[in-house]
């Protein structure tokens, strides 16, 4: 981590950057927050560890309005979102200095807590410099050991790779964390009967509390005003009465980000009710791959996406390849 701080201090000293968009130490072992660091001195509170899962890309929409150059720290998967935001003209490439940082998989405190671990007072092994493959979770009820892999976010088990899709410079090495099949969850749902599918989605989506965390964190949801926030039509967007409404919200959102979603997994990470929202997006990604050939949104900032491009080879809507 010191390597990052030293480099940022140097960039400040050289006058190349005006601020840093990164993560600030939290007051618990696992709750760093996104922060702008306005000077080299402010970096004393900087942190980059296993709990820095937050994708900073979307914060650069606001960051683009600030004066001068903002240095942004992007993990490999975050760069896909950033490219997509450039493509959609939501961030200003000229105002950002991208430091692609290594990643060894990000941790999910909810996963750790779901193991029955409570009263967490400290976590060792989440440091980026630590080569350990085990976490020691210190709690009020004794120390617990957890394999690093077992505490990772779902998205890290299906990691898109160690390459950064866009950067001005690179720092730190990444680790291989891929050990799962990205579409296994979608395949499992596709194999269900219509009744079972309905039951699955009703059960999951009935937990939704309409907090909009999934939408607000989503780098593909960058509309200035969401249709669900409009006061010009009745959408019952805050009323939590009927799973139908909740389902509509999530399905419409999934349609809206289809072809633009990079599968960054932030929606599932932030959902307070643990709804596996990424499954919707992955279903679209899987279908797009099948219908139009393999495509990963955000691989570059120029290429037209399959749903915004027309070619004579495109399949007819009624045929299935």
């Amino acid at each position, binding site marked *: 981590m010191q390597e990052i701080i030293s480099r940022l201090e140097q960039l400040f000293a050289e006058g190349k950057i005006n601020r840093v968009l990164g993560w600030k130490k*939290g*007051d*618990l072992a696992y*709750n*760093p*927050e*996104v*922060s*702008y660091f306005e000077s080299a001195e402010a970096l004393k509170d900087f942190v980059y560890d296993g709990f820095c899962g*937050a994708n900073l890309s979307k914060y650069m929409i606001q960051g683009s309005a600030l004066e001068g150059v903002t240095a942004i720290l992007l993990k490999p998967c975050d760069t896909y979102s950033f490219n997509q935001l450039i493509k959609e003209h939501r961030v200003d490439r000229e105002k950002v200095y991208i430091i692609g940082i290594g990643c060894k998989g990000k941790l999910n405190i909810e996963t750790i807590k*779901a193991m029955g671990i*409570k*009263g*967490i*007072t400290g976590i060792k092994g989440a440091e980026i410099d630590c080569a350990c493959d085990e976490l020691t979770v210190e*709690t*009020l*009820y004794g120390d617990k050991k957890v394999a690093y892999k077992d505490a990772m976010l779902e998205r890290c088990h299906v990691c898109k790779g160690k390459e950064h899709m866009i950067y001005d410079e690179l720092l730190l090495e990444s680790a291989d964390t891929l050990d799962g099949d990205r579409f296994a969850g979608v395949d499992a749902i596709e194999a269900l009967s219509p009744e079972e599918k309905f039951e699955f989605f009703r*059960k*999951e989506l*009935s*937990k939704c*509390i*309409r*907090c*909009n*965390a999934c*939408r*607000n*964190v989503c780098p593909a949801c960058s509309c200035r*005003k969401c249709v669900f*926030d409009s*006061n010009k039509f*009745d959408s*019952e967007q*805050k*009323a*939590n*009465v009927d799973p139908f409404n909740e389902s509509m919200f999530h399905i419409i959102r999934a349609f809206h980000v289809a072809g633009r979603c990079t599968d960054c997994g932030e929606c599932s*990470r*932030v959902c*307070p*009710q*643990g*709804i596996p929202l990424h499954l919707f997006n992955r279903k679209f990604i899987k279908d797009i791959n099948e219908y139009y050939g393999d495509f990963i949104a955000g691989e570059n900032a120029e290429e037209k996406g399959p749903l915004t491009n027309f070619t004579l080879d495109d399949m007819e809507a009624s045929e299935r390849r």
Partner: protein
Amino acid sequence: MVKIKRENLAELYKLISAEKSLFVPAKKAGQTNYALYGADTEVDLDTLKTVKSAKELFFPQSETLYNVKTVDNKYTVTQAELQNEEFVVFGIRGCDLKGIEVLDKVFLSDPVDSFYKARRENGITVALSCNEPEESCFCTVFGVDPADAKGDITATLCGEYLYMKANTEKGEKLLSDCASLTEAADESEVADEKAKIAEILKKLPYANLSLEGWDGTVTEEKFNSPVWEELYKPCLACGTCTFVCPTCQCYDIKDYKTANGIQKYRCWDSCMYSDFTMMAHGNNRTSQLQRFRQRFMHKLVYFPANNDGMYSCVGCGRCVDKCPASANIIKVIKAFSKEVD
């Protein structure tokens, strides 16, 4: 005081639910929230905090207030029925119970909210002690004793038993209705458990959080502080904190158009949302900084100013657990105490 073996709790739930609606912390798709007890309910007393607080049982996220129907160009207005049957909230924690005290200040003072009042009068709370408080808990800062929460009944899990003690007439009645399943017990049997909880509470990371400098008199000073400028930045403007909070009480009132009229309903609102308190002239808070500041000023300054010093935070720590940006009331309080240093 009476006790019942843990393994017989299902019998207790059946007995209570045969007579009254019984709400319990129930696990569904991996998460625990309050739900109406039924044959296939997976009751979960081990999870300390339900995602949504017990607030929703007295002040639901959405509820219909009245219906308007048009027949032959004439309107009929029918008020939604008020709660008129007793119901039991089983397993409510001390923090959520204190949250109801906060809501009482809002909804039971003039003009009284008849929907809320009816639920309060008919609700019977069985408050469950917190055997294993968690790192995000700071209810003691607000005077809550999670080892002895005074619901209509105080319940404590200890060893193989659930111990129950009535604190009110309603509680005594419920315990006598369940007498066939319980046996007599002595308070000394839970003394060790209570002492153990008290020891853990002292070790919690936020046990010594100081609220010095926060009261109803500091509006100008806090409102104009430059600290907000930095604090709000990570905020995603979602409504998670408000919707999991046991004390957030703001709501919106809207129309739902039916085939021949409207349903007037209210639903929780969030001061984090851009349409919060939207009026004909527009919105009086136009930036996220203003919205973020509003939430904490309300909890720590405006509410105490209007309610004899009572804060509208009860230290349940749900926002600490659930804020997707890890911005929360603790960080706000701490940031201001740094400023004073």
